[in-house]
């Protein structure tokens, strides 16, 4: 699909997303977005000894939202919580080999979903993480019109 608006890697992750689906008894869950803005992403985490042992996602959104969810979840699997909190939307875009500018917000959604899940986990277990400082779980990536 050389003339597609997305590159082959985005299409591949969209067609065959990694880590998609349900998780039974997750240790953490986070949802971001709303049907009103068009995109919603839900992340489930299995956490053992501060390490993300498994991750699943569910996304209602366009192709690039699904592809971003796929690579972002790949990027945090097996990582420590602090490492996962360092994943940025720019790294997600790099991993995807680029996204059209009007789709950059989709990568922000996956970064925020990961942080939301960890934020909920930290609250439940009374933990503090350096990478969550200043994080607002009610942040709406659609408020940002630039990248």
């Amino acid at each position: 699909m050389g003339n597609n608006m997305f590159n082959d890697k985005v299409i591949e992750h969209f067609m065959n997303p990694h880590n998609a689906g349900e998780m039974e008894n997750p240790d953490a869950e986070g949802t971001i977005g709303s049907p009103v803005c068009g995109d919603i992403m839900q992340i489930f985490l299995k956490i053992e000894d501060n390490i993300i042992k498994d991750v699943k996602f569910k996304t209602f959104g366009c192709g690039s939202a699904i592809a971003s969810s796929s690579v972002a979840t790949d990027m945090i699997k097996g990582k420590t919580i602090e490492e996962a909190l360092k994943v940025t939307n720019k790294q997600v875009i790099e991993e995807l080999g680029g996204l059209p500018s009007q789709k950059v917000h989709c990568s922000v959604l996956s970064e925020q979903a990961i942080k939301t899940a960890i934020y909920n986990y930290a609250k439940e277990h009374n933990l503090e993480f350096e990478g969550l400082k200043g994080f607002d779980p009610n942040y709406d990536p659609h408020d940002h019109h630039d990248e």
Partner: protein
Amino acid sequence: MREVYLDYSATTPVKKEVLDAMLPYFTQEFGNPSSLYRKGRESRAALEKARKQVADLIGANDREIFFTSGGTESDNWAVKGVAFANKSKGNHIITTKIEHHALLHTCEYLEENGFEVTYLDVDKYGKIDLNDFENAIRDTTILVSIIFANNEIGTIQPIKEIGEITRKRGIIFHTDAVQALGNVDINVNEMNIDLLSMSAHKIYGPKGIGALYVNRKVKLPNFMHGGAQEYKRRAGTENVTGIIGFGKAAELAKESLHEHIKKVTDLRNYFIQSVMEKIDEVTLNGHPTDRLPGNINMTFAYVEGETILLYLDVHGISASSGSACSSSSFQASHVLQAIGIPLENALSSIRFTVGDFTTKEDLDYVVETLMVITDKYRSISPFYKKKG
């Protein structure tokens, strides 16, 4: 890879007969119709033949057909022209909430210039209410512009009934018939239509050419000023090849109108039935019967429209959605909003439009692909709860 084009409402391929009619006028009979020598006269004759062909498709007189660059120009000319010409009589215009942007944005422009516009509501099928319409008429109403058939959901308005009311009240009636042309039997006299916008590329003609029908009794100021073309009504050297293509396409459309309507309606109903049988939680948007023969607009709950379009595109299938997810907040189609579709469903709606070259095998392939899409992406949708 198999390629299936299901976006005939966006544009149609040019039919071979149409192209063949056009070709000689690019290289051999290239004369300017305004020239007095033979080459010019040949062009003129072909142009006038095309005007008659277009007039015949809508039951008009050929002197009432003015060629334009397309539907958008025709809409602009008709609506701005009537508004500015009748300023002394009033400043009120009636239209609907489900017009094409060519009309809506023209009305917004007029609102910025002192006109008042009533945008009629539509029911859940996309039809206006005739009582609402009559009640909206004021002493100052100078123009009614109502889309003949909607481009997104295909709903056909009660045009004849509207025309009876406007004629009785002495108000000018314009309709954007870009989608209806060649898909609905149109007679401007029987339907009391004063102005009607048309476009060639929706009826297997070329792009960049359209026409405005102007009833002889309607005074419409010129929109393009310049030379004496189009009976001094629309200046600029005529798009001769485009006009000839439009004429041929109109002739073919008239010849095969009933056959075309039947064939395309059958395909449409076959597709709707097939999708409804094989996929759960799908709804048809628009009117069950009073809709364009080729229009299918459906909501595939829990899967975002762009996801569906992208997966279809990867599989060689072209369709469209009335919405797009961009960096700013989501804009759902104004038409789907007007018929009261909840936002999350509007986001999951797709328009398929079938046409003369569509086959049942094409539709079977699309339905199979849609089954895969709904299975695959519903399973990863945070909203979806499997029934049973």
